[in-house]
């Protein structure tokens, strides 16, 4: 176990997650004819990532900001761990909810360490505990300790976004709100940050509300996806797998895209489906048959197959040991004959 993992595991052992419930929530701005959010109800189980996704203006960010009372709702209720947010002082409520925004909003006048430990200091932790937590968080996000004394302007965009996540995690909140957190990062770093966040989430198991307009990011990050339409109307609330397999209506089908079959195949790896153990009877010899690792997605496997006259591929584990063969029939079976509910989501 690396130092980072140890720190994360130690932090994880203390951490908790709380379920979040939207109960007939509505938000009506005075002077506006149509409500921004209309009768929105869904529940995010503790420890799950719920992605709010939809076209711009659909109310997804508004819905997220209702949770920590950055915007006050006009109807219904939001419950965190069964308790209504209406009964809480906004500032105190917010200290228990991690908050990450696209523009990050680090405080330019204080160094990285003081940015990260802002909430613990608001909560009145003692000096020693704050220093300890600061060091722990830097390790968690993979920044060297000496970066703690730098100012935000001296960091790269990716590093700043990591610091933003660390600041949100500082006081061990049971719930995190993330508004397009990786939206302003270049594609290569975005993917790296997404993977890092999924690794962290695998250890910390927070309840997360994640807002994005990018369906691919939603599929990648979400345990559950809430697809919203104009006016904050919830069109479908489901696992990524089921949203891709059975879009609720034409709007969802169009939103997830015509390539939803391929997207769905990207959710499963060849290691997760049943493989043929007997070598296929075809023209490929043992040496010129294409070989893939068990972590290859069905989508990539299919792509490799297409380039090789649809001949089955040999699948090997991380050590190069034979696991079996995957054919186009097996991929087809995996997509169509497996009950969608228990298809593993590779997050």
């Amino acid at each position: 176990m690396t130092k980072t993992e140890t720190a994360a595991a130690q932090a994880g052992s203390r951490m908790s997650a709380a379920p979040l419930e939207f109960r007939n929530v509505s938000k009506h701005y005075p002077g506006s004819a149509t409500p921004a959010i209309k009768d929105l109800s869904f529940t995010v189980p503790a420890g799950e990532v719920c992605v709010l996704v939809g076209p711009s203006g659909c109310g997804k960010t508004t819905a997220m900001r209702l949770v920590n009372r950055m915007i006050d709702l006009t109807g219904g209720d939001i419950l965190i761990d069964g308790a209504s947010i209406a009964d809480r002082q906004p500032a105190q409520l917010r200290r228990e909810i991690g908050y990450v925004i696209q523009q990050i909003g680090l405080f330019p006048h204080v160094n990285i360490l003081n940015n990260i430990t802002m909430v613990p200091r608001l909560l009145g932790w003692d000096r020693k505990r704050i220093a300890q937590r600061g060091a722990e968080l830097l390790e968690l996000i993979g920044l060297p300790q000496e970066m703690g004394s730098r100012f935000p302007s001296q960091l790269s965009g990716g590093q700043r976004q990591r610091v933003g996540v660390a600041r949100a995690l500082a006081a061990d909140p049971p719930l995190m709100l993330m508004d397009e957190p990786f939206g302003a990062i270049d594609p290569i770093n975005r993917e790296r940050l997404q993977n890092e966040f999924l690794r962290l989430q695998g250890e910390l198991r927070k309840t997360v509300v994640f807002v994005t307009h990018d369906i691919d990011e939603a599929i990648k990050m979400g345990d559950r996806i809430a697809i919203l339409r104009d006016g904050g109307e919830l069109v479908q609330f489901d696992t990524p797998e089921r949203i891709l397999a059975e879009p609720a209506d034409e709007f969802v089908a169009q939103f997830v895209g015509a390539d939803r079959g391929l997207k769905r195949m990207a959710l499963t790896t060849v290691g997760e489906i049943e493989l043929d153990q007997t070598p296929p009877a075809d023209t490929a010899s043992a040496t010129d048959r294409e070989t893939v690792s068990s972590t290859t997605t069905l989508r990539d496997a299919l792509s490799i197959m297409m380039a090789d006259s649809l001949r089955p591929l040999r699948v090997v584990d991380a050590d190069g040991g034979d696991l079996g063969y995957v054919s186009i029939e097996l991929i087809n079976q995996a997509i169509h004959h497996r009950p969608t509910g228990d298809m593993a989501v590779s997050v």
Partner: protein
Amino acid sequence: MYFLAPAADSGGPVIPNFGKTSSCVLDNKTFCWDWFRSNWGSTFEPALIQHIELTAIAVGIGFVIAFTLAITAHRARWMVTPVTLLGSLLYTIPSLAAFEILVSITGINWYTVEIALVSYTLLILFTNILAGLSSISPEVLDAAHGIGLTSRQTLIRVELPLALPTIIAGLRVAVVTIISLATVAAYIMPTGLGKPIFDAIASGGFNTKFIGAGVMCIALALVADGLFVVLQRILTPWAAARRGV
């Protein structure tokens, strides 16, 4: 060479002569070091101290008033226009006229001088403090509220520190302005570096006294300005980091 025209009713400047005056002074040359040195303790030093006092008190009181107004107007935006109008009005009154008007109300005393000087600082300081508070990026404020800072904590921990460079810039302008305006105050009250300047004029144009006090006034402004630059460097190390220095 005369820096000041000799008084019309006399042949030359009235220069005190107690029998040991140097020829430099008797000839009213541009600047006589010996006279400046021997009168430092009796004329220039007390005038300098009075001048610093006048400026410090005016800027100090002006800052407290402007700061209170700016913080209030930052939350209650409707106040911005009336306060700015009032400040501009005070700022546009010519200094001599301001002193004259005030004398008719408050009399010839130290308060009159300070009231006038304070009124000149208000517009500069109010505008700069407000500009500093308003220039903070909305995402920083959103993050501050979003992670649980109250409005008061946001003001103290985020807004004021970030407004500091602009606030200090305002203080620099205010201090330099007041140092120059305070010389005019001697027209009403014999105080500050304006006193030796007015005395020199009244005595028909004694160059050493006039230039000595004038140069001290300029030097005081430069030093005060420099001190604020140093203060800003110390208080806002992050601003240098942002500029990539």
